[in-house]
């Protein structure tokens, strides 16, 4: 019988080896996928045991903090947002039952003080409990408040303000805002409201026709490619026949042969339409892509909550190889869609001598002992245009504010460069389908000779023009930031 006993033992060894194999699979090899399962609330519940770090505005205002509830084993931390809806976007929320979003989600590891498995074992042996790090953002509370209250007056829309030289996000406001404190109580209402869409960050997710603000990109491509100089004139009739449809100037006004500054100041559609056709797909798309189009902007927000900008067909961003109506793309129409963040990046790149810095909301990470453990190191995303082109564009954009379509953006005593945009969006579902609805824009920067701030403001569903609703928002936000300098 001994031979059989040995074989039986061998069988038991095999059985136990299977147990080791399965345990290894669950605990190590498949662990990451399991932790991300919808049904798995354990990681979130555990995070609730950790005092999540605070999120602060640039001046130290507390945007988010964790407060302890219960005692002993029942002790847990709950997120509180003292400023209410002011920073709902872009900070988002973090609750066990509803998960987390936006900045809270992107910076989760830092906020809970997540470290590698080995260093956490060391902490265990030394008896440390895991604690979260604080994050100081670049958000300017005064300007953020101005942006949101202006938007609430103007209508649904968004404002993004970037510091051109660093990419620091000073303002990111989206109307309709939401109060993260309300998420646990009315998540259903917040997430299903299809008109107001309060949980949707219009600054990064709102894809809107950019209208005439896009002419800055077209002009940049023209100057950068050498196709035009600031002195080059193009004959601009009142109407241009493109692809069988007339392309009109406002009031079909005819300008004759004019150069860039006149064309931009008066937002002459036929001038830019012809420039777009001369540039061709390759040159226009190359410049667009350098400005950030056709990619998800490199901001510190979760990729699924940041949309790309570009010429869209059936949900796909077209490339230089696809046939497009270049004359209409050049004036920000056709199937072109851009987010407010993207247009702020265009303004910021021009303001920064042609260099586009990666937009970032965070500024520094501070550990529980008060040490700065990480600090934003501004980095360049691309250089869409040369310093010379940037200067030429700036000059033309100054004309828009001093003598053109964007006079409401003017700030007394400060040189402002900018561009208005008004895209007609008749039948827009979000506006209730009215025929006179526009998407109103203003992008620009100030002071023009030494830019401190670049801003994009965009308002949905308005019957007014960019200069009427978007330019004043630009002015108020820029003033708030420049006064705070």
């Amino acid at each position, binding site marked *: *019988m*001994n*031979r*059989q*006993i*040995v*074989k*039986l*033992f061998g069988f*038991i*060894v095999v*059985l*136990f080896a*299977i*147990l*080791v194999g*399965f*345990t*290894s699979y*669950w*605990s*190590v090899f*498949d*662990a990451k996928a*399991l*932790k991300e*399962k*919808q*049904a*798995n*609330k*354990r*990681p979130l*519940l*555990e995070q*609730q*045991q950790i005092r999540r770090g605070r999120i602060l505005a640039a001046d130290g205002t507390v945007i988010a903090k964790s407060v302890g*509830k*219960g005692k002993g*084993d*029942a*002790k*847990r931390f709950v997120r509180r947002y003292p400023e209410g809806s002011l920073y709902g976007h872009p900070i988002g929320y973090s609750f066990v039952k509803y998960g987390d979003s936006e900045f809270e989600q992107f910076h989760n590891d830092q906020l809970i003080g997540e470290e590698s*498995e080995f260093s956490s*074992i060391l902490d*265990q042996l030394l*008896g440390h409990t895991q604690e979260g790090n604080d994050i100081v953002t670049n958000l300017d509370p005064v300007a953020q408040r101005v942006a949101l209250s202006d938007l609430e007056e103007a209508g649904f829309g968004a404002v993004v303000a970037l510091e051109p030289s660093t990419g620091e996000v000073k303002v990111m406001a989206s109307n309709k805002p939401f109060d993260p404190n309300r998420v646990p109580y009315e998540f259903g209402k917040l997430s299903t409201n299809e008109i107001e869409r309060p949980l949707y960050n219009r600054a990064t997710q709102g894809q809107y026709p950019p209208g005439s603000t896009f002419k800055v990109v077209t002009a940049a491509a023209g100057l950068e490619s050498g196709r035009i100089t600031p002195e080059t004139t193009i004959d601009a009739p009142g109407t241009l026949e493109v692809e069988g449809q007339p392309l009109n100037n406002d009031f079909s006004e005819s300008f004759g042969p004019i150069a860039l500054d006149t064309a931009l100041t008066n937002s002459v559609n036929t001038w830019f339409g012809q420039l777009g056709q001369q540039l061709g797909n390759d040159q226009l798309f190359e410049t667009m892509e350098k400005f950030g189009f056709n990619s998800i902007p490199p901001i510190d927000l979760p990729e699924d909550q940041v949309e790309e900008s570009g010429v869209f067909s059936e949900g796909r961003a077209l490339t230089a190889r696809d046939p497009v109506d270049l004359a209409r793309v050049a004036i920000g129409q056709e199937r072109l869609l851009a987010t407010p963040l993207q247009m702020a990046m265009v303004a910021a790149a021009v303001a920064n001598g042609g260099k586009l810095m990666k937009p970032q909301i965070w500024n520094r990470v501070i550990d529980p002992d008060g040490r700065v453990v990480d600090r934003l190191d501004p980095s360049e995303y691309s250089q869409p245009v040369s310093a010379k082109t940037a200067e030429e564009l700036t000059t033309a954009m100054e004309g828009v504010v001093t003598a053109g379509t964007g006079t409401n953006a003017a700030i007394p005593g400060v040189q402002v460069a900018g561009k208005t945009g008004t895209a007609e969006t008749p039948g827009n579902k979000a506006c209730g389908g009215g025929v006179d609805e526009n998407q109103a824009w203003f992008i620009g920067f100030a002071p023009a000779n030494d830019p401190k701030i670049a801003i994009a403001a965009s308002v949905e569903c308005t019957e007014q023009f960019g200069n009427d609703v978007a330019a004043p928002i630009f002015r108020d936000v820029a003033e708030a930031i420049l006064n705070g300098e």
Partner: protein
Amino acid sequence: MSSARNRELAALVPVAILLTAGFAAVFSQESTRLDNLSLIYGAYFLAICVVTHIYLRIRLPDADPYLFPLVALLTAFGLVMIYRIDDSLARDQANWFVLGLILFALTIQFLRDYEVLERYRYTIAAIGLLMLLAPRLPGIGQQVNGAYLGIKIGPLAFQPAEFSKIAIVIFLASYLRENREVLIVGARRVLGVTLPPLKHFGPMLVVWGASMFMLVFIRDLGSSLMFFAAFLALLYVATGRFSFVVIGMAMFTVGAWFFASTVPHVHDRVEIWLNPYVDPQGTGYQILQSIFAQADGGLFGKGFGESLITIPGTHAALLPAAQTDTIYSLIVNEVGLFGACGVILIYLLIAARGFKIALLASDGFSKLLATGLTAVFSIQAFVIIGGVTRVIPLTGVTLPFISYGGSSIVANFVLLALLLLISDRARREATQPRGRALSLGES
């Protein structure tokens, strides 16, 4: 002085140290002050083990030296885990540990000549079957999670299947010892398959079939799997006919298919095993949370006392039945894959020592009894660990010596006592071939 007992004593010291360290770790997590309570618990435990050791030194000087320390290690580990879940449960468990040791001692005291069991094999089989039936009897039966596992007589509640497994193994070992020759010689080849002779196979089939039926009747699937595996293991060892095992497996497959499609309780268990994500908040909750807890453990675990067992702020379980069914998942969560492998290794070492005893034993009954007890013990560990790791459907059996539960601890100590009784005789006979007569002559 027996060298085996010295080795046993030496092996108990690290066990007591581990227990002390384990309690210290739990205490340090639960409160900021680290008092000397962990030392006191460690000392108690060591004292109890030393008393047991002295008893073994007197009664069974030649018995296997590693089995008791290995079991003590599992018990100590179990006590720490249960203490970490709920200190009042740990107090119960400690009492049962002592009760288990008392029954352990009584078994050794009164079953020194354990061949006597052979004489009462049908009585033992009948008692084993009756115990299985008892939970279904009105008045004393108790239903837990749809299964009739426990009985309650006055203040005394226990799960008879734990004891029944020992009774059935004794019966099978005894029956096979007597009939193995006939089973081998009388086997006939039918259609190319070697079949055992029905006449001699019958009684065993009846006992086994009855136990299987009752297990389905009381809905204890885990135990039925254990019993079945032990039956096949013994049949194989006794006859050496692998074909019998194949026939058994075939029977099992048919039976399992039959029950899975007719008995809703069995069908549900299999469904949950195959598709746990269908109802993650309901039927799939336990197995999914078990897996999630393991995923959270990683290589080294979160540390003693760090796992979440209930949803904070509520009494709702995050890891259901953490002190019994899913204690292994809790172990993986807190001490990681390495710790869990350590636990499996201890079970494997116990199995190795058990089978070693069977190899050393000279008579058929001892061999088969040691084999059967070791097999049923190992399979029990496999059934529950396999259940919570989704190797097989999750069924409620205890993790021997670790899970919370008096019946389990006490029954497994009786099982251990039987193994040590067999071991003591086998090792004495192995070291002194003509032992008894010679030493009698000298004295």
